[in-house]
């Protein structure tokens, strides 16, 4: 971590004004990370808890030991960890949702959000099957977009451990997804209902 290259916060957040700037920069992504994991009902309280905790502990942030982002997500992971059951429950509900109805083929309206919604049940089911450790690493990488080193700093594990844990989590996710073919955008097995008409499902 190059302290001189940090945008905000990484030079220190001990000063209330610096903390305020860090809060403005990082609250929204941290909130979304939590919201995606435990739902909106809990997210407001937990995201607030993350930043109140960060404020209390702000002097313990050491830029030489990782980025401010990774430090904040480390707190967020700990906060969410206490709500494991809520997360599992939310994933179970998501997994039971039916994929949203297809739009008409005038597909200009189709956007990424709809794609995500259509795949959400399967993805939620897959995430539900991961262990806590695997899920934490995977979601810090995919949703928080932390690097291996930042994940390591957030979870206080070695970068090599983060890398291998992520690799394993990705493999398991693919397995749980039922071999979704990213090249052809189809699931190999029948009944998923996501393949284009006339392909693969006979």
């Amino acid at each position, binding site marked *: 971590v190059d302290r001189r290259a940090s945008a905000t916060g990484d030079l220190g957040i001990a000063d209330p004004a610096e903390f305020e700037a860090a809060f403005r920069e990082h609250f929204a992504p941290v909130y979304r990370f939590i919201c995606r994991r435990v739902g909106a009902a809990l997210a407001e309280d937990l995201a607030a808890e993350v930043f109140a905790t960060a404020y*209390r502990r702000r002097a313990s942030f050491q830029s030489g030991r990782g980025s401010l982002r990774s430090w904040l997500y480390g707190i967020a992971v700990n906060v969410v960890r206490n709500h494991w059951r809520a997360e599992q429950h939310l994933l179970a509900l998501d997994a039971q949702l039916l994929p949203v109805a297809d739009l008409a083929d005038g597909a200009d309206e189709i956007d990424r959000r*709809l794609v995500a919604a259509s795949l959400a049940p399967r993805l939620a089911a897959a995430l539900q099957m991961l262990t806590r450790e695997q899920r934490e690493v995977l979601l810090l990488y995919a*949703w928080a977009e932390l690097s291996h080193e930042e994940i390591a700093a957030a979870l206080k594990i070695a970068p090599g451990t983060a890398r291998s844990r992520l690799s394993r989590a990705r493999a398991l996710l693919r397995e749980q997804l039922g071999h979704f073919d990213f090249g052809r955008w189809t699931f190999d097995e029948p009944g998923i209902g996501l393949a284009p008409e006339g392909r693969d499902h006979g």
Partner: protein
Amino acid sequence: MNQASAWHQKGGTMADEIELLRLFRDEMPGPSAGAWARAESAIAAARSEGSLPGSRRRWASRLPASHLARSRLAVGIAAAVAAAALTIALLPGSEPAGRAPVGRGSAPAGTGSTLPAIESRRGLPSAALVGKAMLTAFSAANDDILYSIQTGINRGVVVDIYRDWSWPAQPVTGRQERYRSAFTERISRTAPLKLTEDDGFIYLVPPANWNYATGRLTVVCYAGTGQTGCGYGDTETPPGTWSQHYGRFVNPNPGLNDLRPAALAREIADGQWRVTGRTHLNGQQAIELTQTPAGFYQPPPTLLWVNAHTYLPLRMIQGANKPESAQVDWYFLKPTAANLALLRVPIPAGYRRSGPPGT
């Protein structure tokens, strides 16, 4: 046709499962105005607690890390005091005396330090003069071993203690520096203080502001402390083991510019401290300085005591009279064989070696 395949046929791309997860994330709206307000309210509540930031591991108070680094420029007190400090046990499970929140006057028996009472406010030197005298004092002691004890106190209970040794006291770019840090903590208010982690790092001092330094790192992670492991930088050492690593690790003294003896003296001369009285501390005549609101160490009040004869710093307390406070005591040791032995990290009997193979 479903959304995914239709989007794909329209040219949408999704490389892998990570991209899929990000699509899943992106459908989540950002925080509402209520969520922002809720967080702002929680931060305001935390601020109103008047607490110092917590420790690197739990809820303990400690000075900012940069304070610890900056403190290493500060050197020495009398040898007799240093020798007394070294009698503090550094064994697993040992428990130095607890310290109550500091206050002026006498402390209840057994509760440790208090803020020494101001004895005189007459004939005080100017802050500029104190700063200049400190510069001279630092320079004379640069080659000795700096030993500091940093104590975090939470509502009357000592919650963590960092004992650090650095030699030479003032790191010099391009020269070898030996550093040891022994961390003791209490995992709950009722648990005993226990030596948790002991790190030794022999390294080549990098240029100013480099975050990493190259050298040999030794880590002992004590068992039975409640910690699931120890780590210096990117290393991992399980409890009940020790490890040794060669390579690039976190620089224990980043920001060498801040470590120069001139830094603290300049702060004093620049008006960030004001001289507030004369007193006695540990049997020594001392000058008390109080940080002004423009000072580096927050929250106030932060107090500093400097030996009235040697102009070497004795003690700093951050958050004096607050529910959480942190105190640093500085000692300066001559680099005798016995004192240099303190820089070595002892490996407890029966501890197996862990860590990367071949190191």
